């Protein structure tokens, strides 16, 4: 009986040692990352929801305040203004910016010379720090800046780029200029991988150039366009840095996006509890969008 018991524990020990060896290196390699992800990603993410029910005070400590933070978000006009501004910003991004990269990509792939140069130049604005671009464009949009000087030279009215009506449009123009190159490179990669034989066959069948673009090129990049559209919407819904550094939400809150408002609440008004609640609200809305995006991406990878 004892022998059997002994044999069993020995076997258990051996299998435990084997299990230990089996998993040792993998666990050792992955443990630091598990800890780092926990401390610097999961804790903040979860704490955000926790903090949203508290009044954060660095001196007197935090107090549980129930839904007060959420209620105060819905009081006043800023919520409506900032959501309207954010949606307007997202819409402008699509109207002014979204359609440019695919067209440029089609044009660049048809260039006989300087294709490489065109790609590099197009990407150049994405390589330069955003803050430098904001500094540059503050001058270009200035009342006496180059654009207005040019307009006056050819006899047109100067544009007030930072008026309440124009300021968001100005910011979107700048951001389109800044980021279309990167998107163009992605489209180029997709367009180049379309089999040339399709165009050959279409041409033999008498399809015009426009028909080839319409029925071969565009359908081949349709999924990609949808993905990039979603990606752009997700990105622009979180936009606030251009607004922060160029107009700081002004004039008259015309460029106050939701996240800019959140950042003002946290780091200017030092109301961290309310800001956490605003982040949590945003979180639930964006999570929905992210899930849709990932489902689509998975579908396109299968295809």
């Amino acid at each position: 009986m004892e022998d059997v018991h002994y044999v069993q524990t020995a076997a258990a020990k051996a299998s435990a040692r084997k299990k230990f060896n089996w998993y040792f290196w993998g666990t050792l390699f992955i443990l630091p990352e598990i800890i780092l992800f926990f401390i610097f990603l999961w804790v903040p993410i979860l704490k955000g929801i926790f903090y949203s029910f508290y009044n954060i005070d660095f001196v007197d400590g935090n107090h549980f305040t129930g839904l007060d933070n959420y209620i105060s978000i819905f009081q006043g006009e800023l919520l409506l203004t900032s959501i309207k501004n954010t949606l307007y910003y997202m819409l402008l991004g699509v109207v002014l910016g979204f359609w440019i990269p695919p067209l440029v990509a089609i044009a660049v792939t048809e260039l006989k010379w300087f294709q490489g140069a065109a790609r590099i130049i197009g990407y150049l604005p994405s390589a330069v720090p955003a803050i430098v671009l904001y500094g540059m464009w503050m001058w270009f949009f200035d009342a006496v800046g180059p654009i207005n000087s040019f307009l006056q030279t050819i006899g047109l009215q100067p544009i007030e780029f930072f008026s309440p009506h124009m300021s968001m449009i100005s910011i979107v123009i700048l951001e389109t200029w800044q980021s279309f190159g990167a998107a163009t490179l992605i489209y180029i990669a997709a367009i180049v991988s379309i089999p040339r034989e399709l165009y050959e066959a279409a041409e033999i069948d008498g399809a015009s150039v426009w028909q080839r673009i319409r029925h071969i090129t565009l359908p081949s990049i349709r999924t990609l366009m949808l993905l990039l559209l979603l990606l752009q919407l997700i990105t622009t819904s979180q936009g606030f840095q251009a607004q922060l550094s160029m107009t700081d939400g002004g004039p008259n809150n015309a460029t106050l996006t939701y996240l800019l408002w959140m950042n003002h609440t946290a780091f200017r008004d030092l109301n961290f509890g309310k800001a956490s609640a605003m982040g949590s609200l945003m979180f639930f809305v964006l999570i929905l969008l992210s899930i849709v995006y990932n489902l689509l991406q998975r579908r396109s990878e299968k295809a």
Partner: protein
Amino acid sequence: MKPSERGILSSYDLKKGTVITGYTIMVLLMICMTLTILYPFFNTFFSSLKTREEFFAFPPTFFPKEWIWKNYEDAWTQFDLPLLTFLKNTIFIYLGNVVFSLMFIGLAAFALSHLRLPLKKWVTLYFFSTLLIPPATYIVPNFLNLKSLGLINTYWAFWLPAAANAYFMLLLKNFFDGIHKEILEAARIDGASEFISYMRIAVPLSTPIIGTLLMLAFSTTWNDFYWPNIVMADKSMYPLATGIYRYVVYPTSVIPWSVRFAVLTMAMLPPVIFFLTFQRFIVRGLSASSVKG
């Protein structure tokens, strides 16, 4: 003409009048676009060399009448801008970010890809589900978290969180997945420990993806102005982008435009050179980050 050499247009198309007209218009538009992209850069550079009067001249000049390099000297000396400190901080943050992220993320990605792990599915989910969560929504608790850890106003506030990057992990893991098991198996049979086979086999084989990651990390660090502005409290700790944001381009800045542009020119020069040198990696990084079309 072989099909592989044609695009949407064939050489035959280019003999038709309407196509030639359309193509010419397209080329002209592309040239306009190129000029639109390049103009702001050159304008910034040349304006940084103008006198303060010429800067506002009407009609505006493109090339400066005289090249006033003194604007650059002023940028360094006149306005209490510790540009060298800012630059040093940026590089310091970048190096720390790279060391911490590549060291820890590399090991973890290797484990996910080639080693045996308990609850592998759950561990993978634990890492990659963070990709779904938009970072902007936890800026505030992230700050509070760093504050409660006592990391505010230290570089650890960048270095340690830099290692919690699921996106880099995904790129590395995808690359490691492409390394054949047989190579690692052979190393194991020859008695190499997993760490040795990681260092001597996986890492050397991964130089392209590591190059891409170095690039991505560089542009992130060089670009980020908002987060350091929150996390750092002293002027002497700010990286360059934050220094420019706080002391150079803020809306009511008192620094003359030409000097401001001198600072901006200097700030964009390193990334532009970096980009032109390593553009191969960037393009690869972009297509790695995008979907297959």
